[in-house]
């Protein structure tokens, strides 16, 4: 970190004042420099590269992201040794800059729908790549618009007149040397977006573009010179990459929300407003109950997500060990769980960042607060790597499957093991959740049970509705669609339970008593706030009574007051440096107003004392009227 921060080469003007083209240029400059320095310092470990990169770019996207994050790893995992010889070193040395072109204009999450074709021509031993429709134009890949000279393109493979499904091809797109698009290739930038200004997300259209047979990534599936297709052995392995990327998004949710909380809480401690008691000085806005109610549950959430992110990462590493030994048994559950957690945490963090921004009033809206930037950088994660609703439904599919197993007498393991309890309950006519649970609202362990009961109740309700639809309608798919709102609710409840459970489990691992005490308060706040926001479920399922709901609401407010004295310390613990936060409001020293004035003076509109628009438009108008 210090390596980067103290390096003058990585400094630049405030990004907020730069145009999109300037931001792209700055990012490229820093990326080029970064690659040099990585080599210079001899950094090669992926984890270390990730950290180095995140300090250079301060957590922002950059045009080489896809080269480093997708192009190189895909070569490593899917290329044959011969292909690695040809492409890997040039790519490592950046003679080849690559991107990963999967998403098309017309299709994103639903991969089978992709329309780009790669037709094998045995006569020349080449693949002919085509974008047959407007919707098939590759759209969104990062680094494609202006930066890359190669792309790994996903296309439907046709050989011997048959479609063999999606496969990956290495396609050169720009002339080495001149960087001009090759004949048959149309490539460009997709235009301005909500954030990601420094990224040249691009489009790619191919017209009868030919590549040699050897450019298909053939470690698994193969096309032989005569056009014979050889099937891959196992396709479950791709799960691993997806789990990995989703675990990164969960960690991102935690980090982005922590940054937003840091800014909002520090600012709330500096901002004074109005009066609580007539005649007294204006209090810090952090002393208002409504402000605490906005921010402290988010602070608790940020901590909760940190623990969840760490859990997934550990589990992934543990299971990856198993996978390399050929044991895939835990993968389906982890895959299903990370899909839901990716959606749950990114939705929550997304809303939380906005809540933090709103809690900063008007100044939160200024780009100097840093909050708009955190938001626009984070919010696409609700959509990329699997649209959140689709993710929730994937988790739901697993839950329903587990539930069906339990009903048919099998036991299930892992996070869904609570469903096992349902089989004993089924003898009774009433719903499972009508079973009285004695909830002790000051005991996290007891709250985990309450969340568990809610999840069980919603999974069962969704499954019942699904059955009812099946009895009424013709097809499974219609029934699934007509139950999907219930299914998403069940998944959310399941994820919520998992998070409360993981947070609670973490408490016993903390040895320092003072830290444990404050973490227990946050854990309680997280769990109780979640109940107070979803009272309907807990009441309807008969898990909590009206009186208990009252106590929960009351306890939430008491906890706000308990956490208040530690609030700033709790965000200081996230340990974000000022230049990493990039926020005038969130400065460690709290010197807000002076800095804001200094910042504003640099605004592009202030470059001249009288703006040229006055001479061009306003003055002539006054003269004419």
């Amino acid at each position, binding site marked *: 970190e210090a390596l980067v921060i103290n390096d003058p080469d990585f400094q630049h003007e405030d990004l*907020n004042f730069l145009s999109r083209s300037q931001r792209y240029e700055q990012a490229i400059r820093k990326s*080029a420099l970064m*690659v040099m320095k990585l080599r210079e310092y001899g950094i090669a470990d992926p984890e270390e590269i990730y950290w180095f990169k995140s300090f250079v770019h301060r957590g922002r996207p950059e045009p080489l992201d896809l080269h480093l994050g997708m192009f190189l790893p895909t070569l490593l995992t899917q290329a044959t040794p011969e292909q690695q010889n040809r492409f890997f070193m040039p790519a490592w040395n*950046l003679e080849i800059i690559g991107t990963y072109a999967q998403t098309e*204009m017309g*299709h*994103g*999450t*639903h991969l089978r*729908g992709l329309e780009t074709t790669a037709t094998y021509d045995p006569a020349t031993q080449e693949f002919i790549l085509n974008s047959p429709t*407007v919707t098939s*134009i590759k759209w969104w890949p990062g680094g494609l618009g*202006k*930066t890359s000279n190669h792309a790994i393109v996903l296309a439907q493979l046709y050989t011997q007149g048959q479609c063999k499904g999606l496969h990956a091809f290495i396609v050169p797109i720009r002339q080495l040397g001149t960087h001009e698009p090759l004949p048959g290739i149309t490539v*460009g*930038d*997709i235009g*301005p*977006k909500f954030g990601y200004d420094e990224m*040249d997300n691009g*489009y790619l259209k191919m017209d009868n573009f030919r590549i040699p047979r050897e450019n298909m990534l053939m470690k698994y599936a193969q096309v032989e010179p005569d056009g014979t297709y050889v099937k891959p052995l196992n396709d479950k392995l791709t799960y691993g990459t997806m789990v990995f990327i989703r675990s990164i998004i969960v960690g991102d949710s935690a980090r982005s929300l922590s940054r937003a909380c840091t800014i909002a809480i520090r600012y709330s401690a500096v*901002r004074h*407003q*109005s009066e*609580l008691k007539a005649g007294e000085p*204006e209090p810090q806005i952090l*002393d*208002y*109950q*409504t402000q605490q109610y*906005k921010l402290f549950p988010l602070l608790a959430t940020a901590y909760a997500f940190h623990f969840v992110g760490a859990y997934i990462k550990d589990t992934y590493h543990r299971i990856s060990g198993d996978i390399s030994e050929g044991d895939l048994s835990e993968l389906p559950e982890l895959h299903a769980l990370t899909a839901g957690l990716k959606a749950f945490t990114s939705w929550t963090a997304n809303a939380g960042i*906005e809540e933090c921004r709103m809690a900063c*009033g*008007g100044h*939160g*809206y*200024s*780009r100097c607060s840093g909050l*708009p930037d955190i938001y626009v950088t984070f*919010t696409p994660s609700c*959509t990329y790597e699997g649209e959140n609703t689709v993710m929730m439904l994937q988790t739901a599919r697993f839950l329903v499957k587990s539930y069906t197993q339990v009903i048919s007498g099998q036991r299930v393991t892992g996070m869904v093991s609570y469903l096992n309890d349902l089989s004993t309950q089924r003898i009774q006519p009433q719903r499972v959740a009508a079973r009285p649970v004695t909830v002790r609202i000051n005991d996290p362990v007891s709250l985990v049970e309450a969340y568990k009961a809610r999840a069980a109740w919603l999974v069962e309700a969704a499954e019942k509705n699904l059955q009812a639809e099946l009895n009424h309608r013709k097809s499974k798919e219609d029934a699934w669609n007509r139950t*999907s709102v219930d299914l*998403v609710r069940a998944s959310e409840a399941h994820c919520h339970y998992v998070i409360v459970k993981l947070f609670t489990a973490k408490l016993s691992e903390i040895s320092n008593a003072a830290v444990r005490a404050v973490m227990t308060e946050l854990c309680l706040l997280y769990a109780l706030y979640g109940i107070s926001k979803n009272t*309907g*479920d*807990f*009441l309807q399922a*008969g898990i909590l009574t009206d009186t208990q709901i009252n106590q929960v*609401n009351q306890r939430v407010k008491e906890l706000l007051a308990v956490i208040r004295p530690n609030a700033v310390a709790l965000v200081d613990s996230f340990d974000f440096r000022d230049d990493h936060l990039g926020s005038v409001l969130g400065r460690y020293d709290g010197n807000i107003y002076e800095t804001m*004035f200094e*910042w*504003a*003076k640099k605004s592009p*509109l*202030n470059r001249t004392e009288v703006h040229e628009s*006055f001479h*061009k438009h306003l003055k002539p*108008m*006054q003269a004419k*009227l």
Partner: protein
Amino acid sequence: VNPDLASERLTASFSVEELTARLDGGAEHTRMRRAIVGAIESDPVFSRENQYFQSQNERYEAAVRRAVYLQKKMREMGWTENGPEVKCIYRWLSGDIALLLHRIFMRSISVLGSEKQVAKWIPLATDYQIIGSYAQTELGHGTYLQGLETTAIFDIATQEFILNTPKISAMKWWPGDMGRSATHTVVFAQLYVHGKCYGVHPFIVQIRSLQDHLPCPGVTVGDIGPKMNFEHVDNGYLMLQNVRIPRENMLSKFCEVQPDGTYVRWGSQKINYFTMTAVRISILSEEVILPLMKACTIAVRYSAVRRQSKLKPFSGEQEAKILDYQTQQQKLLPQLAAAYAFHFINIYLHELFNSGYQEIQGRNFDSLPELHAFSSGFKAMVTQYCTSGVEICLRACGGHGYSLLSGLPSLYTKVLASCIYEGENTVLFLQTARFLIKCFKAASAGQPIPPSVTYLSSTKPRECPAKDKLDFLNPDIYMKAYEQTAIRLLSSSAAKLQHLILSGVEKHEAWNQCTVQLAKAAKAHCHYLTVKNFVATVEKLDNKAGIQKIMKHLCDLFALHGIFSNAGDFLYDGYLSGAQMDLVTASYLDLLAVIRKDAVPLVDAFDFTDKSLNSALGAYDGQVYQRLYEWAQKSPSNLQVSPAYAKYLKPLLQNTLSKL
């Protein structure tokens, strides 16, 4: 037209044209609006096609140019500043124009100025000899007006006020059009006469020279820098150092400092707040509800064009429209229902305020507390709801929603600002809550209460009588449920407040401890009134051309979605049972499928032109992909050669090996 959209329009259950006319307030209004929109759109100066590609400087300049050109256009067309056309023009422009604060400047002079002041300033402003702004918010203070720190000290010797920014947090910050354009502004400052403070008053201050536009002596003024949106507006800062203005520049319709320094007041001080109160309501239509309507139009049309996965995997049929997925319907259709609900509540509020304005002009301030409570609560609820609604629409459009060319990001970043300006929402809810608590106490004591809150004194019924899911399509059933919930949330807050005070907690501290609950109660109150007004509106419609039927569906959806989303509040204390909540859910989900069939016609009825939507995803013809592709090619990033290649990429690509 894309056949996927054409087919949606063939099956409309009602007449789109008829509904558009209702929304406009009559077919003749629709004709007039279209004529005006046509006139504006045919003029290339008003084209917004390039706005997503422009820098802050370019957008500001374009907005100023449009503002100036609009004056010319209005003269040509014979449109007047107070005519019915203006509303249509601003609806179409949707704020993408400079000098909007000039209008606020003029309005505040009209409302707060003496006859003499109006006679002096309004003609100057009308002819744009001066350009005005409105400077209230400071760096350190926004919503809490009494906390403003700018001072205006009366100097008897010269008969002038001396204005000062005593410290950095007192700098005016945010006022629109002030950073670069304005020559004058209405400054709100603490008035001091003979060392005594009389509170916040408005003063007209000249800030730039009328000759060379340079800041006047003692004035430091500039732009506050980039924001989340409003790049075209020069929100400004203003520092005043011993700036002197004549005594006559204090706006004095309701109070005045006389030459000898005597402070006289006629009428209620509350009048200062009426402008603000009215502004809160006036922003709702154009700045808050309209963005939601546009977002719904874009998202619904796109969802009818976008196909994703097959609902039946192995059948030969096409991939399904994403609008056919229940989860997609659940995201979009409640927003659509809300857009209609808020359109109707907005009409109601305007009627209320117009009659209130008449009374106040006659110096009868009786209705002010209720109007104030209305404006606060509804501004907070509607802005909050519409903001989240627009964001839901954005995220419902997958990746393409994030492209600026979808139009959705700019709608979102614009509408979300409305949650903060003209009063921060939480503070506003609490103002409404204060009013409600007063009324609740009065009702309990048997005293008369304003008409909007008479329900607070209704008797407590036992339980909801609904037995079947169809019962929940009966407005009396769901209105009663909303009413009960609103009453309970308020009465429990009142009881808690009372309890705390009786147990010795100081009043202000007791209030602070109840604020989370109180804000919730205020929101429930506004939500209830919105449902009630929607029901009343539907009842007044005749069923010509199928309008009443579809509006009834939307009204039911709005109401049931509210219950479904706040289930706990309705289950608590058993007004609704768990079984009834299942019926609500069933009824709600059934409605989604019903309204789905009319979704596209329902957004067509908003009647936005393609140019006003300015969206590749939302155009009427549904040629989404073609438009997106062609538009992206016009991006400056594709027209100019980026210097980055020659400067950084080329050396990187060609020389790295030698350097390593």
